[in-house]
């Protein structure tokens, strides 16, 4: 247990240092990330431009550093919106039951029986490319997991005596939801969200890579990779460094998420997956 705590601490420091890179970007960056000097275009990495320059002559190192901001910020917004939407729908669905439950859960079933990313790509594409729309699109297809989780937790405590007592003494529904249901559901949802950060970050970067997320006005790693792709033969650094930045950040969040789950949940992920598969197997034949 102590080893696990130490491990968690190390990963936490890893993540916090990435966060501080984002916060202190102006002090770390060596150049203005948006300053284009066309005479300096696609220069190889040197002591002046650590990661070289892009096709507009902008310093890649500074752009990668500033990219941390976009990536962390948009991923955080995405995870929060998925958590809030899924959490609210799940709690309401579980507590109210009946018709509301049927509608919400059938809708969730429908979303699950469909490859989410394909739908998200279509939604993002139709709404027009921007980070905001990419976040909305991914939220629309990812909330179901959190809703199911919140609903199952609510169902577990719904028939506890203290909830009944609250109901009997005339506590209003929204108060029961906010004061009793939410606090018991939130910790699990937050842990799930923490373990999902890395994956969500990859999805967002993938959207930007496809040109459906960030646009040229913002500094984003996925978009940088997409731009650098065309210069693979002449300027390979344009596709190596932004990719490395995504990779390192995702690794940091995945390590932290895994160790957080290890710490709080004695059940290993393997077993959880195993159970899930058995459950879907059972459901499909029930």
């Amino acid at each position: 247990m102590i080893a696990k705590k130490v491990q968690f601490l190390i990963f936490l420091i890893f993540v916090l240092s990435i966060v501080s890179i984002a916060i202190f970007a102006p002090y770390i960056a060596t150049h203005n990330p948006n300053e284009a000097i066309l005479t300096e275009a696609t220069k190889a990495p040197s002591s002046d431009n650590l990661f070289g320059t892009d096709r507009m002559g902008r310093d890649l190192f500074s752009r990668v550093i500033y990219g941390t901001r976009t990536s962390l910020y948009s991923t955080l917004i995405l995870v929060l919106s998925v958590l809030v939407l899924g959490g609210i729908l799940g709690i309401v669905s579980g507590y109210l039951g009946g018709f509301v439950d049927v509608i919400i859960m059938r809708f969730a079933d429908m979303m699950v029986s469909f490859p989410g990313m394909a739908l998200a790509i279509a939604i993002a594409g139709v709404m027009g490319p921007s980070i905001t729309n990419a976040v909305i699109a991914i939220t629309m297809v990812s909330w179901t997991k959190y809703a199911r989780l919140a609903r199952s937790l609510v169902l577990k405590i719904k028939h506890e005596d203290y909830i009944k007592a609250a109901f009997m003494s005339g506590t209003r529904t929204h108060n029961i939801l906010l004061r009793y249901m939410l606090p018991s559901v939130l910790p699990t949802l937050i842990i799930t969200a923490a373990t999902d950060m890395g994956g969500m970050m990859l999805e967002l970067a993938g959207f930007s890579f496809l040109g459906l997320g960030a646009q040229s006005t913002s500094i984003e790693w996925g978009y940088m990779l997409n731009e650098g792709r065309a210069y693979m033969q002449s300027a390979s650094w344009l596709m190596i460094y932004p990719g490395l930045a995504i990779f390192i950040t995702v690794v940091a969040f995945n390590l932290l998420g895994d160790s957080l789950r290890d710490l709080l949940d004695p059940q290993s992920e393997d077993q959880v997956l195993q159970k899930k598969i058995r459950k879907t197997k059972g459901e499909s034949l029930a």
Partner: protein
Amino acid sequence: MLKKQLFKRFTQIVIVLLGISFMSFLLIYLAPGDPVRAMFAVTGSIPSEEAMEEMREELGLNKPFLVQYGDWLSKCLKGDFGTSYSQGRPVSWMLSERVAPTLNLALLSLVIMLIIAIPIGVISAIHQNGIIDYICRGFTFLSISMPDFWVGLLLLYFIGVKLRLLPVVSTDMGFKKMLLPAFTLGFAMAGKYARQVRGAILEEMNQDYVSGALARGISASTVLWKHIIPNAMLPLLTMLGLSLGSLLGGTAVVEIIFSYPALGSLAISAITSMDYPLIQGYILWIALIYMLVNLMVDISYSYLDPRLKKGV
């Protein structure tokens, strides 16, 4: 009993497809941008207001929403998904052209994934908590955390550009062209599967029948190969079904990197050119194929696992 389940599943599929069709229609209906303008933009001409109004009349775009949806749905049921705005060809043709390359790529990537994931998962489980296990888990972690588009770009760069082992761009649609994209997809999926295999094998190892077999003096390797591995592979089927389903929806990122024309890149080009009938057709196609694949997986379970047939 099986017939009853099948019937239930079919009605479920029909209901979900109806829902998806309604959603995809609504999505396009609410979409900003004028499809008629987009159609003219493709031809490069600047139309008069009357010409655009005529076009709207012709396409039925000025009818009420539900009427449009009904018209569209009844056409879809006859297999007519409309005509692509950007290319002027029937959407069903454009989709069906891409089915074979998509299927080939999906199957090859699954094979590559299994070749990587199963040995790693098995070895990792046998050497649980040993050095080899940690190395294998490190690989698993790498596969989960590396962006697939970056893996694709690096492969293209090192194997295609630096070593020149495989063609970077070729018109030939054969095996060689599929190898790099399939490897990229296979590598990205392998981590998840290796974890699953490891977990399943560890769980089987703790079963009573394993101790029983070992106590009867059956060698450990026989138990592993004949009992543990076959039993541990069964749960992979659900995951494989889900993976195949989403792979058949196209893998836009990889297709674009390796300029491999399958469904994913078709969807992206449909989106960038605001080709609404094509987007709708694509969404319906993936919904259908995803559900059919998963239905097949469920049916095959009852054949592969006798316990389920008896309803135990």
